[in-house]
């Protein structure tokens, strides 16, 4: 499995990237860590005319806190986020999730933004963004409307499909910071630790309400709000059926629904760690 031929560009500034995207549009693909895109190219699921390697753009790699958001630039690797000393304090959900994202060998190169813009429905980072109600920043070359901020709920539109336009670059992802009276939990079942999830569940447990998200079942991460005074098992059963699970080579639809019920029960009823 080898990629089809493509032109390769390694721009050194954000402006150069946006110009290339403006000129090439849907014939171009952006390469950052390559842990999603290179597999897609190798399998020839995409045959772009131009691959734009943004690895040389220095100002796209950062982890910053700005206005109660944890902001992560497009070149920041998953391993850097996992090693960030303040992760557990500011983003306890991500601290739980990151060890499940791929393997250490792929986290070494894979980027946080890359996983989110790839939008695999069973990937953990898109699920985390959806459950936390985060947002992404998309930039394009335009004299006036060059930049927009899109909430996760609008960004993920289906299997490997997002609201990003072909001439836009996802420059930053923003996760809301942890709130002291909230509890953050995550669990998943996969064929092998680090593989894509059969079912992944993330929960934000607030004083009045639980925000529960599921990955790996529908064509995108799905979020449901559950008031705390409801019967969890009934709610989980409704949630499991609402996801439209399908059977594939790895698991039947019934097994996936059962995982949502069982993992959900454990996640919502276990004592706070």
């Amino acid at each position, binding site marked *: *499995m*080898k*990629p*089809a*031929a*493509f*032109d*390769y*560009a*390694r*721009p*050194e500034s954000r402006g*150069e990237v946006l110009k290339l995207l403006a000129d090439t549009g849907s014939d171009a693909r952006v*390469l950052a860590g*390559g*842990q999603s895109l*290179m*597999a897609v*190219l*190798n*399998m020839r699921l995409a045959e772009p*005319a131009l*691959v734009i*390697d943004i*690895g*040389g753009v220095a100002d796209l790699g950062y982890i910053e806190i700005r206005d109660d958001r944890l902001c992560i630039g497009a070149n920041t690797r998953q*391993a850097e986020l996992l090693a960030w000393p303040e992760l557990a304090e500011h983003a306890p959900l991500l601290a739980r999730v990151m*060890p499940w994202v*791929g*393997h*250490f*060998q*792929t986290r*070494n*190169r894979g980027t946080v933004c890359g996983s989110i813009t790839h939008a695999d429905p069973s990937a953990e980072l898109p699920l985390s963004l959806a459950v936390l109600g985060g947002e992404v920043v998309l930039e394009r070359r335009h004299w006036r409307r060059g930049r927009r901020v899109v909430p996760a709920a609008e960004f993920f539109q289906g299997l490997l499909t997002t609201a990003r336009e072909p001439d836009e670059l996802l420059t930053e992802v923003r996760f809301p910071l942890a709130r002291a009276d909230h509890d953050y939990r995550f669990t998943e079942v996969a064929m*092998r*630790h*680090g*593989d894509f999830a059969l079912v992944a569940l993330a929960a934000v447990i607030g004083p009045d309400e639980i925000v529960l998200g599921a990955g790996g079942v529908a064509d995108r991460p799905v979020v449901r709000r559950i008031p705390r005074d409801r019967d969890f098992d009934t709610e989980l059963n409704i949630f499991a059926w609402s996801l439209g699970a399908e059977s594939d080579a790895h698991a039947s639809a019934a097994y996936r629904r059962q995982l949502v019920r069982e993992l959900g029960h454990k996640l919502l009823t276990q004592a706070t760690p």
Partner: protein
Amino acid sequence: MTRIAANTPCRVRLILNGKERVGQAESRMLLSDFIRHELGATGTHLGCEHGVCGACTVRVDGVASRACLMLAVQAEGRRIDTVEGLCDGDALGDLQAAFKRHHALQCGFCTAGILNSCAEFLDKTPEPSELDVRDMLSGHLCRCTGYTGIVAAVLEVAAQRRGAPPETSHV
């Protein structure tokens, strides 16, 4: 800005196991194919070519990475370490010797990649638990060994490097 047109070989220069090497690569050539076919270092193996099996794992600037998920042109100017660099002159390095002692390989197809992961892992995690080792190994598929020997070998090398006396009773 670097630009390379499709189907046009260009020169790639990198440091392979401490020696500067130069070869020709088209933009679409994978780092794994460049190392094997252009530079002749065939110790790096290819299983799946989409990032799942870990056989092709090398170290890029010291960091374990899939060579099948990287373009040769992205390795320009970088330090690439492969299994060939792990030996100690003509003798096996400590990690390789431990693999041999513990029967941590049978066909050996997966081994080069695993050794490279272990090399970075032990640098960063000098006192690993068995769970840490198994977590690190989850990025590799080995169809022969059942992993038990691999775990034992890695734990032994970690202990040796910390100065613990070697265990003697390997049959």
